[in-house]
């Protein structure tokens, strides 16, 4: 266990080192940070003075060594735009992203497990076919399109008059497709509860939860179909296995077989994929956060790129790298708990 953690921590350092080197190497291609810091009419002389002050004129190696020296002491530099330490800026934005990911994960867990299991047990039922059909559509629609459609339907609202409104059924269909709107379409709302440190939560107020609805659904829409299909496929395979047949022969109730014995083994690969996907979800939040003006790290990162806020870009990439390593480590640990036959460090059992 200890050896495993030590190995992972050194891996994390390696990952972050590589990321920082790459980020530094490409920073010239990210544009000139001064463009966002000064007005157009500021003279070249003044610009040069600011560049000198920021140390942008030093050779790349000097800049990197200075950065690495500070980084080892936990200082990843100051954001040009926020005029604050980059880690502080990320800490301020991270809770919003985490809450969005939690919201989306809850939707995924509570929908994908029952739907996936149902579709595995009753593959021929029309409801299963319906879910499978919808999930194919869901997986192929890009998240920003989903988001825009959701905003139009549930935030702005649409009035439908495709059907003749003088007939009963026409009126009913019109009403059926007409939506009221009213759900918030941007931001996290005014009423956030302060938990600790920089964490302000939207989970404890009505408006906070309302603001979470559309972004979470959009973000979940990407992963949900994948998980439904994964759970369905795994479950179907498990249901074919011998021990399930024995359990049936033994006369165990269907519920106990399906939800205790079969589901447990179904979840093994799901957890692995899930852990990786949560990391990927952090990347997907960039799109979702942009569309919903969700003040999380994804939006912050995108804006840092348009502003060439290089220290913030580098720090963000390093933090995301760390998150990937940490989630993967956690996944491996949980895997060990669920399936005790798996050995962490790969030694022979």
């Amino acid at each position: 266990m200890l050896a495993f953690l030590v190995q992972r921590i050194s891996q994390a350092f390696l990952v972050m080192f590589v990321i920082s080197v790459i980020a530094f190497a490409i920073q010239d291609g990210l544009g000139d940070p001064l463009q966002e810091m000064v007005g157009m009419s500021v003279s070249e002389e003044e610009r040069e003075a600011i560049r000198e002050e920021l140390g942008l004129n030093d050779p790349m190696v000097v800049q990197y060594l200075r950065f690495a020296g500070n980084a080892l002491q936990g200082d990843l530099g100051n954001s040009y735009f926020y005029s604050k330490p980059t880690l502080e800026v990320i800490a301020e934005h991270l809770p919003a992203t985490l809450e969005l990911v939690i919201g989306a994960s809850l939707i995924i867990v509570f929908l994908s497990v029952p739907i996936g299991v149902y579709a595995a047990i009753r593959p021929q039922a029309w409801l299963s076919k319906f879910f499978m059909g919808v999930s194919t559509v869901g997986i192929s629609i890009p998240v920003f399109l989903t988001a825009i459609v959701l905003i139009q339907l549930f935030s702005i609202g649409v009035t439908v008059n495709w059907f003749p409104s003088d007939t009963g059924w026409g009126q009913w269909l019109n009403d059926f497709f007409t939506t009221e709107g009213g759900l918030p379409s941007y931001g996290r709302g005014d009423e956030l509860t302060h938990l600790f440190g920089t964490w302000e939560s939207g989970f404890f107020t009505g408006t906070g939860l309302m603001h979470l609805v559309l972004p979470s659904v959009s973000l979940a829409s990407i992963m949900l179909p994948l998980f439904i299909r994964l759970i369905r496929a795994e479950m179907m395979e498990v249901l074919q296995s011998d021990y399930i047949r024995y359990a049936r022969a033994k006369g165990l109730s269907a519920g106990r077989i399906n939800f205790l014995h079969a589901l447990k083994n179904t979840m093994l690969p799901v957890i692995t994929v899930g852990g990786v996907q949560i990391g990927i979800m952090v990347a997907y939040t960039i799109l979702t956060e942009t569309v919903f003006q969700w003040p999380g790290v994804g939006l912050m990162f995108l804006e840092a790129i348009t502003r060439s806020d290089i220290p913030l870009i580098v720090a963000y990439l390093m933090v995301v790298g760390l998150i990937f390593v940490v989630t993967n480590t956690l996944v491996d640990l949980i895997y060990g708990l669920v399936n005790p036959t798996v050995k962490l460090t790969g030694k022979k059992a």
Partner: protein
Amino acid sequence: MKKLIAAFVGSMALAAAPVALSAEATKELKMAYDADPVTLDIHEQLSGGILQLSHMTFDPLLRWTSDLGFEPRLAESWERVDENTMRFKLREGVKFHSGNELTTADVKFTFDRLKQSQDFKAIFKPFSGINVIDDYTFELVTSEPYPLLLNTATYIFPLDSEFYSGQTEDGKDKSVITKHGNSFASGNLSGTGPYTVTERKQGVRVEFERFDDYWDTQSPGNVGKIVLTPIKENNTRVSALLSGGVDFIAPVPPNDLERIRNDKNANLVTMSGTRIILFHMNQERVEAFKNPKVRQAIAYAINQEGIAAKIMKGFATPAAQMSPAGYQGHNESLTPRFDVAKAQQLMKEAGYEDGFTITMMAPNNRYVNDDKIAQAVAAMLARINIKVDLKTLPKAQYWPEYDNRAADMMMIGWHADTEDSANFYEFLTFCPDADSGSGQYNAGNYCNPEIDALVQEANVETDLDKRAAMLQEVEQRLYDDAAFVPLHWQDLAWASKKNVNIEPVLNVMNFPYLGDLVVE
């Protein structure tokens, strides 16, 4: 019930008018811009966002009216003492947010600080100093006669000298201006303006509250609280308005103009803007561009009206010069000269009938539809056999390329900080000179010392009619010479809910005077 009370209070206040109209400032305004102010220090950066903040939390000595005239604000009146001196009388009894009273000492403090500011010092270069006569009288002195003295005075938003002097707890000078890192002024402000900043979370929201002791009791403004949310994504900003999440948005993307115009709850205001979009033809890189006939051929080949109508969806005013209407240099007689036959003829005369190949660069997220405009221009040039190799880049990468003059034709948009024609020429068509900094954005390397001399002469001409004639001649000569390819002035658009009466507070400079905003 709440509405009823508000209406009742409102009618009571109206009955008691004109005493303290601002006392009924009870409405809340939620607004969404594409960005929030980067700092609270109004001298740290010269940008639209900061000027907007300046007008909300400070007041200028005088400000532009919607027809490009001046109206007195903190300066009650002004008179020219001699060629180089203008005397201002300051309004009495004006209070800063801190409670301090405004005097000429504050104006002097502000003026000196502006001279230090990296972004503003260029604008204040013609000024040699400020003479304080008494607590409410001062003179601005220029080193030469300066016709734009009043234009520049619109940038003087007096700061609370007492508030910005001294040292912070950790021993830093409070008045210092820094481009990066935390200064006292970048996080705290005290002005004379209609609003104070009550909460600020950078990139997320800024909250403003009406200042109780605001001096301008005649202001009809009735907004007590403003919440500004930056929403960068165009679609989201428009959705926020249409779904009722916010009351006021700017800018409005051209693609959504129709949608907002057709919405029964929304109110759209558009205005012809003053930002010129143009292409430079680099004579240093392309031999053919040295030939005026080739440049004219290009000018004839470009269909400005087509671009404004088709690509900009009518959201632009086709241009054949840099000065927009209302500027002194605006020359009525110059109109777009689209004529492909004439263009081909000119190419033939210049000996380039078979054309040539050039490179072109344009940003793709800086101006409205910038990349599409560049594509259209490239297609139009193909008709006179100029083959264009086009590259469009995000602005962060584009400007370094621009500074390197990395392509034969490059796009730029320019807004004159002084709201005056001469500013265009100084930056875009003056002979490039690294030492003096003139022609800093002249990516065409066009150089005509005669024109430069004429502009310099106009810059010390205080007879405004004479000056206008000189600047119009400059425009004419640049046009005849086809020094650059003007495309259009980008329009401005704002949208609000029906009950927000934005029209009276909007202006072509694009800083709405929100202190005077009335919400029904």
